[in-house]
């Protein structure tokens, strides 16, 4: 689904990532770790077509990123759910409408999906907040709303960038539980985090592989974590 081959990415001056090869297989669960500024967010952006590699190849669902039009990228986003650390919403729409936004922009009939929407909101524990506006949410509620929005189109891949960065331990456990559950439903999950505790907590519940970005390269971390 996502194949990176000898990929490199450099900002104006220096190279941030180089020689990266990775093949995400359906149903896999990955953690992506590394020091701050190592390029975790950049790596995720390369995975959902927000950035184009400066060298090498990124193939998303069989399409080379370089050959995609802006519309192709938009269509791919419907198959890859993304959760950002500082998740952004449309602040004038309610939480429920924000969660339904991917349906709306892809031309689905939101009314017809009301039941699914309600179930998803309940699954994320946001039922009592469905009518609230995003600025009224707490950090954990925002993250769960972002996760709900990322999965409403039933994407095959979920990429989460520091989803537990702004929330307390208990909330991070709830988020992890939601992501693990999604993985059990067959979704491919990749979580970028520098929170080793979270990775350890996940190890007992799911078969996760840990990737580490160090010295511009992507390495498979040992079992010592």
């Amino acid at each position, binding site marked *: 689904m996502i194949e990176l081959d000898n990929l490199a990415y450099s900002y104006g001056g220096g190279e941030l990532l180089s020689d990266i090869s990775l093949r995400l297989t359906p149903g896999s669960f990955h953690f992506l770790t590394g020091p701050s500024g190592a390029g975790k967010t950049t790596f995720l952006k390369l995975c959902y077509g*927000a*950035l*184009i590699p400066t060298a090498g190849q990124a193939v998303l669902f069989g399409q080379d990123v370089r050959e*995609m*039009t*802006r*519309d192709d*990228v*938009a*269509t*791919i*986003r*419907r198959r890859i759910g*993304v959760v*950002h650390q500082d998740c*952004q*919403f*449309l*602040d*004038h*729409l309610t939480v429920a*409408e924000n969660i339904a*936004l*991917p349906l*709306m*922009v*892809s031309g689905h009939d*939101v009314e017809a999906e009301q039941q699914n929407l309600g179930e998803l909101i309940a699954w994320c524990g946001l039922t009592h907040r469905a009518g609230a506006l995003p600025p009224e949410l707490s950090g954990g509620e925002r993250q769960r709303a972002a996760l709900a*929005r990322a999965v409403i*189109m039933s994407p095959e891949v979920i990429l989460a960038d520091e989803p537990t960065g702004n929330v307390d331990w208990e909330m991070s456990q709830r988020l992890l539980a939601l992501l693990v559950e999604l993985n059990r439903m067959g979704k491919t999950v990749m979580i970028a985090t520098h929170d080793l505790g979270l990775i350890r907590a996940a190890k007992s519940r799911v078969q996760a592989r840990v990737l580490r970005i160090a010295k511009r390269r992507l390495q498979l971390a040992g079992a010592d974590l």
Partner: protein
Amino acid sequence: MNKRLSPRALAAISPLALLKGEPQADRVVPPTGFTARLTLFAAAAMTFLAVFALALSLATGRMAANWSQELARSSTLRISAPADQIAAQTEAALQVLATTRGVARARALTAEEQQGLLEPWFGPDLPVDSLPIPQLVEIVEDGEGYDAAGLRLRLQAEVPGAVLDDHARWRRPLVRAAERIRALGLLSLLLIGGVMAAMITLAANSALAANAQVIAVLRLVGARDEFIARAFVRRFTFRAFWGAALGMALGLAALLALPQAQAEGGFLTGLGLRGWHWIWPFVLPPVAAAVSFAATRAAARRMLGNLA
């Protein structure tokens, strides 16, 4: 990342697709009171001005046409002579005119016609017969026209009391002036359209810039450029349309409040619209909507094309 809009995306933001509408798409752009009011105001003000530019062009065009038609190849001979010689001199003048090259017809006006011409100045009760009023002769030129200087010389010799009034020649500059004013009116219309396009482009740019976060969120959740552009384009098109409709209504009301055209009032009271010309102002709101559509679409395309 710098990728062009696909042809399909462009087709989708065509006017027809726009009219079909997608009310859902409208909601994703937060309501922006201030830009909305500015756009409405700009469209209304510009259309109000456009109504007058239009009325001016149409009225001067009509005047130029009337003047050139009425005065086309016509002139007047005025014969002032003692009462007992008038008839003889008129006869002589008609003889001269009949043998002048370039004169198609010449006809002495009847007493009733002359009285009709004087009526607006002296009233209907004037005993014209008792006054030494000059006899008027209407001359209609043929295609080639006559030699005015030569005719004057001949008349001087044979009909000493005759004065040739070649009014086509003094009214020609008026017709030319009217045509100039008309051209200026049309130019004003173009400028008004251009200014409106510029204002709406600025408003759309500021709306797009102010909503950068909205656009980023929409892109993230998989919205195509057509969807995002349409949300903005629809808004501005409808705003411009309703603004223009308001401006047009006010402009028409102002035109209706102008004094009616009257023969005595000359051309100043003829500035309103007449007959089927009243249709033209109603063309302005759709034109404003089209201008706004094109301006916003161009702005949205430019902006989205530069986004990641």
